[in-house]
């Protein structure tokens, strides 16, 4: 019998993280007058929509029947984290599409009251999408590796960092397109990710699959080293490392969670 959770869930967790982080980058840049920042914001909005569309496809393909996704949305179990998550994911995707439609035809950034409100709502939903997968895994009492509170901040910061990294990749290496505040946020998210990932690895046992250590190294340690050295292409390097680390982390969690405890 195959493990119940497969590659689709790994991809979904990865794509949801990327979408949430890139939506935050979009919210910080798309209203700016600077042409590079505006272009980056638009690309990030598009990336958010594509990532969420693919993520929802992964989720749906994991169900017994694709129509059952509608069942999850309509049959409300207020105690189920997944039921809330499905609604948050759908609201986030729709909001990203709405924001994209606001800026799609524009050639430079603007921030009317309505646009600001839409971006604020998108930011809040992006944070919710970043946090909730960790919350769902934390609720899994049958899987010892997942059933830890530290899963929530670790997956949340990992997803946000992957999304921020993807956002920087969308800026095509022009870190000047990023507001200084966002660069500071990236460093804080990276530091928090390192702390919580180390805590999680120590708390969940001394020995893990090599994939876990690669995820930590690629996703947090190497980006910190690169940022400290500040080479010319630091943004692209850290972006690629963060995305690879983020995917490896989820692949390890899904694989080892089931391999060891199911």
């Amino acid at each position: 019998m195959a493990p119940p959770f497969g590659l689709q869930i790994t991809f979904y967790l990865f794509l949801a993280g990327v979408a949430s982080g890139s939506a935050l980058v979009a919210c910080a840049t798309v209203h700016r007058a600077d042409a590079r920042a505006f272009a980056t914001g638009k690309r990030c909005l598009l990336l958010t929509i594509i990532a969420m569309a693919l993520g929802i496809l992964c989720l749906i393909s994991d169900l017994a029947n694709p129509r059952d996704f509608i069942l999850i949305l309509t049959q409300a179990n207020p105690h189920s984290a997944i039921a809330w998550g499905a609604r948050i994911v759908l609201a986030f995707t729709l909001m990203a599409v709405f924001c994209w439609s606001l800026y799609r035809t524009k050639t430079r950034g603007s921030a009317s009251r309505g646009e600001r409100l839409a971006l604020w709502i998108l930011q809040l939903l992006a944070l919710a999408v970043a946090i909730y997968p960790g919350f769902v895994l934390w609720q899994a009492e049958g899987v010892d590796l997942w059933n830890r509170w530290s899963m929530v901040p670790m997956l949340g910061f990992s997803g946000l960092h992957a999304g921020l990294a993807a956002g920087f990749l969308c800026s095509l290496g022009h870190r000047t397109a990023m507001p200084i505040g966002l660069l500071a946020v990236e460093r804080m998210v990276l530091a928090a990710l390192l702390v919580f990932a180390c805590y999680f690895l120590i708390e969940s046992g001394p020995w893990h699959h090599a994939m876990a250590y690669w995820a930590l190294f690629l996703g947090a340690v190497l980006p910190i080293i690169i940022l400290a050295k500040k080479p010319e292409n630091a943004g692209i390097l850290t972006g690629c490392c963060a995305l690879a680390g983020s995917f490896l982390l989820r692949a390890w969690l899904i694989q080892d969670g089931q391999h060891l405890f199911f």
Partner: protein
Amino acid sequence: MPALPKIPWESIGPEHRLDYKRAFMLIDLNRCTGCHSCSVSCKTEHEVPLGNFRMRVRYLERPDRPTLAFLPLLCMQCQDAPCLKACPTEAIGRLDDGRVVINDEKCCGNKACIAACPYGAISINEETSKAEKCDFCTHRTEIGLAPACVASCPTDAIRFGDLDDPQDPVTQEAQAKQARPFREDADTAPSVLYVDHERWMEPKSNLGVRLSPEDDDIIYEQNNLSSKII
């Protein structure tokens, strides 16, 4: 009330009993011989596909002497069931007698219940892609028959009764033998109690009912059986 069907070769006592305040099972590990008749009868009764189990018997090597202990595992019908809370579509519900049942129509197969169950008692039926688990044979007990595993157990190691009825002989036996739930730390108020269950069994049994031929499980290793029983 319509007359009950007469099935003399299967009954749960001198009288067919239909009403349970809290259905429960008592599993006496001293009596279990690991014969697998419970898991086989369960598979037959529910037409469980190859590779899936609603109930299975784990063979555990005892730490204190060179022999094996047998541990039948099934859904614990928890009063505080984590699967019930985890299901997004409310496909998992509770009957009046405390049994936790899955509604196939509502099940979307998203496996949240599998991850939530601390006993590993739920699996996905690969033919229907829906979740399935033991429900104490609701279809049998509602016409007065014992669950299939109870009826087939040759040593009466598995018994079915009403935990809220102090006159029930099975309840009295559970009290007399100080039966305890499995993995009390999970704090889910299970409705399956074990006699002479020992702590060392718990970490060794966490594979639950989801095992595959690749796993280290004796049911798939009949050829090596003699080497396991030293």
